[in-house]
């Protein structure tokens, strides 16, 4: 059947090649850019907090922080006036709808004239004082949330509905704007794709010393990526996938490509030219079909997640797996049929020989010691994972959390809701300052009266009237809802506050993009842990169904768990924070590791089962036909992942770096541990 199919492909190779290339060319024009930059929206879409915000017909707010390296306490009159000019400049910017700064912060001031007094809310910007600088100095303590005393800097928070608003400020005062606009994404993407192409070309040329490898690889990868991305766009309503998802789909198809190409290449040494393609397809079809099924079933789990990011990851991998499967057995054989290898010469043969010797004469004590160390590391990792808190860092990483209360007026109910919110987050060292209408009322009460502030006893109408006199409560309202600004001590504190808010039953909604993003990422971690376990379960079931031998199941579990244990040990040893990027990398690595596991087990089960523990041929063949292409494929993938470091986007850089480490750990386990386990658990004594 395979022979018939291969002959069918060979007969139609020109039409297959031309139609594939023509279709790719046409589809490439419909592709949009922004795979790299536009990733925040991917994370928040569908996330719990974002859905709550949307249900309230509210939009997310993008907060940019402008930092001036001047001390609040030592602020000179000139610096104050310059800051005032900057405030006026920013206030006139259309894209900024609100500024939180020392000039907009409202606080009560009690004016006294003998037996008369009047308390009102004032801000530096609308103060009637002739000398605002002196007025500021007199009330300096009121502005401490805009100052970071340790670093001696004053902050302005700029609120906008646009992601990339203000980039430059015309001032001589030194300043820094957080989360600056990235360079044009197209440039970054072209660089990345160029790097990917060059890496592929160079490594394949060096490995095979033949142009057929880089040529077919680049055509194959380009066709797969374009088809996958376009199909993804059609399914997801014109959306573009996140770059890490794109890379994952690329990896899934590339590993299989290398596996087929390598088998085709090496087969020239053992088979007649007319048989090479048939033998290659016969040898590779089943394991590739199985890996496609495993990845599709495993990633289909993510379709049930609320997160758009995880849903798109799932859809993209499923599409990429099936497109890869189709192209691997149509376009690729069609392309390969144009080439012939006269004298296949591979470094991998020497490597296979070397590895076979190492495995045959392995030292059992060293292996036992290795497993003992892995067991200890495993316990260490489980203990740490159980205790550790997950960490989320964003490009903005602001300490401010903007929370929305579902109330639009100053009433007893709205104050009660804010008080409940405060009870949830306070008392806590994590909170530096909270700003809301509740705090304004409390401060006003303190300025007017000596009695303690008890919400049940206060006359809200009075404060409502007094606030309306001073211009209303607009300062505490955004899009018609009351806002509470929580200034956290640091990013770790912010995460704890967000967790408290999310766990509480109070109907509050996170409003700022940075906190929404952090919440969304935290939500995805749990789902990703489940996915990793599910993927291991799926591959184990498939292995069991395929081999019907428990020994293979045990081997599958061991080789999948070892890289994860080693990786987590490294993470904890280096005190790296456990981030969603780590879990994304693990998913990528698991998907690739599963491919490798299936290829190894399928080949061993089908071809090497009868070889004895002391026999050389079985292990040598395993290395020659499976180990070498997988080693080559994983090295290429590690380079590809390392390329992501050059995107300069922290989350993508982290994904690239972690994935590269995991992929290498995974292939090292497959090469050094799996054959030993085959010899120990399966080979005939």
């Amino acid at each position: 059947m395979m022979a018939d199919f291969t002959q069918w492909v060979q007969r139609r190779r020109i039409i297959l090649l031309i139609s594939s290339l023509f279709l790719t060319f046409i589809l490439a024009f419909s592709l949009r850019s922004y795979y790299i930059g536009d990733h925040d929206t991917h994370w928040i879409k569908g996330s719990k907090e974002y859905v709550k915000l949307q249900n309230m017909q509210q939009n997310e707010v993008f907060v940019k922080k402008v930092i001036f390296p001047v001390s609040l306490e030592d602020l000179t009159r000139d610096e104050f006036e310059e800051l005032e000019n900057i405030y006026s400049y920013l206030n006139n910017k259309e894209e900024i709808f609100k500024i939180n700064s020392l000039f907009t912060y409202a606080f009560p001031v009690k004016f006294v004239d003998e037996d008369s007094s009047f308390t009102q809310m004032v801000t530096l910007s609308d103060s009637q004082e002739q000398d605002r600088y002196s007025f500021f100095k007199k009330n300096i303590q009121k502005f401490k949330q805009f100052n970071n005393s340790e670093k001696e800097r004053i902050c302005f928070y700029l609120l906008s509905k646009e992601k990339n608003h203000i980039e430059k400020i015309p001032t001589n005062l030194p300043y820094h704007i957080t989360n600056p606009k990235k360079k044009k994404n197209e440039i970054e993407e072209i660089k990345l794709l160029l790097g990917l192409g060059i890496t592929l070309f160079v490594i394949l040329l060096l490995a095979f010393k033949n142009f057929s490898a880089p040529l077919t690889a680049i055509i194959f990868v380009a066709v797969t990526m374009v088809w996958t991305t376009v199909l993804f766009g059609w399914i997801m309503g014109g959306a573009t996938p996140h770059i890490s998802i794109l890379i994952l789909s690329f990896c899934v198809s590339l590993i299989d490509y290398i596996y087929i190409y390598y088998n085709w290449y090496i087969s020239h040494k053992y088979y007649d030219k007319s048989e090479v393609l048939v033998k290659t397809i016969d040898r590779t079809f089943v394991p590739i079909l199985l890996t496609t099924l495993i990845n599709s079933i495993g990633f289909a789990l993510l379709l049930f997640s609320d997160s758009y990011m995880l849903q798109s990851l799932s859809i993209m991998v499923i599409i990429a797996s099936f497109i890869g499967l189709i192209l691997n057995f149509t376009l690729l054989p069609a392309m390969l049929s144009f080439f012939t290898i006269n004298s296949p010469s591979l470094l991998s043969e020497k490597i296979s020989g070397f590895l076979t010797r190492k495995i045959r004469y392995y030292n059992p004590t060293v292996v036992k010691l290795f497993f003992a160390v892995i067991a200890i590391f495993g316990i260490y990792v489980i203990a740490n994972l159980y205790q550790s808190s997950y960490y989320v860092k964003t490009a903005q990483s602001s300490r401010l959390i903007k929370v929305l209360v579902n109330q639009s007026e100053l009433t007893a109910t709205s104050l009660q809701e804010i008080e409940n919110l405060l009870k949830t987050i306070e008392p806590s060292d994590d909170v530096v300052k909270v700003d809301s209408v509740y705090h304004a009322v409390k401060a006003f009460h303190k300025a007017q009266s000596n009695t303690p502030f008890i919400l049940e006893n206060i006359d809200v109408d009075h404060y409502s009237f007094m606030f309306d006199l001073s211009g209303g409560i607009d300062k505490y309202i955004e899009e018609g809802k009351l806002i509470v600004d929580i200034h956290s001590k640091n990013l770790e504190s912010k995460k704890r506050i967000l967790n408290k808010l999310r766990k509480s039953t109070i109907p509050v909604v996170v409003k700022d993009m940075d906190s929404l993003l952090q919440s969304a990422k935290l939500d995805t971690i749990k789902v990703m842990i489940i996915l990793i376990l599910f993927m291991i379960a799926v591959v184990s079931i498939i292995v069991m169904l395929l081999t019907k031998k428990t020994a293979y199941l045990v081997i599958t579990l061991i080789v999948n768990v070892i890289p994860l244990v080693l990786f987590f040990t490294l993470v904890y040893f280096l005190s790296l924070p456990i981030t969603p990027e780590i879990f994304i990398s693990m998913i990528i690595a698991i998907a690739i590791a599963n491919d490798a596991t299936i290829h190894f087990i399928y080949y061993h089960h089908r071809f090497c089962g009868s070889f004895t523990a002391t026999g050389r041929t079985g292990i040598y063949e395993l290395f020659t036909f499976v180990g070498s292409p997988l080693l080559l494929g994983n090295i290429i993938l590690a380079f590809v992942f390392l390329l992501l470091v050059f995107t300069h986007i922290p989350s993508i850089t982290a994904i690239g770096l972690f994935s590269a480490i995991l992929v290498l750990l995974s292939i090292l386990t497959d090469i050094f541990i799996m054959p030993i386990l085959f010899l120990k658990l399966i080979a005939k004594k």
Partner: protein
Amino acid sequence: MHRVIFTILFCFLFVYAQDKRQLTTPEETIALLTEIKTEAITIGKGSKEIHSFIDPYCSMSQMYIKHLFKNQKRMEEKYTIHLYFYELKRKKSRLMIENIYDAENQIFMIKQVMVEKQKIDIEEIGDLDIDEKIAKIAVRAEKIGVYKRPFIITNGKAK
């Protein structure tokens, strides 16, 4: 010795401070205000009633009125604000109060005097009705314990 003086002074201040408070309960205050509501100059037609005792020459009352007119639209929509002119003796504003009550457009005159601080020629009015109005307000103000200007009352409670 100085400790004794300090304690006596503290007690005096405490008693004095205790005196400076609203003397009537919210219910009593509302009842008293209802009696003089017709004597007030009223701004706005909002759902919430605000009663304020002010003096035209008091800088704090002027600040209050200034804010009131600054946000006039919002205040008129949301509140019904009753203004009661109640003289601060040291300000000697009795004649001005009489003139405001006598003015054809009282609100315009309040603006002129208290917001724009225009110098207005004032004259002896000698209107018994106005005298009675001022007296009526003063009696209720004393009962309530209006100790400062502006004395703003919402829901029978003052701040």
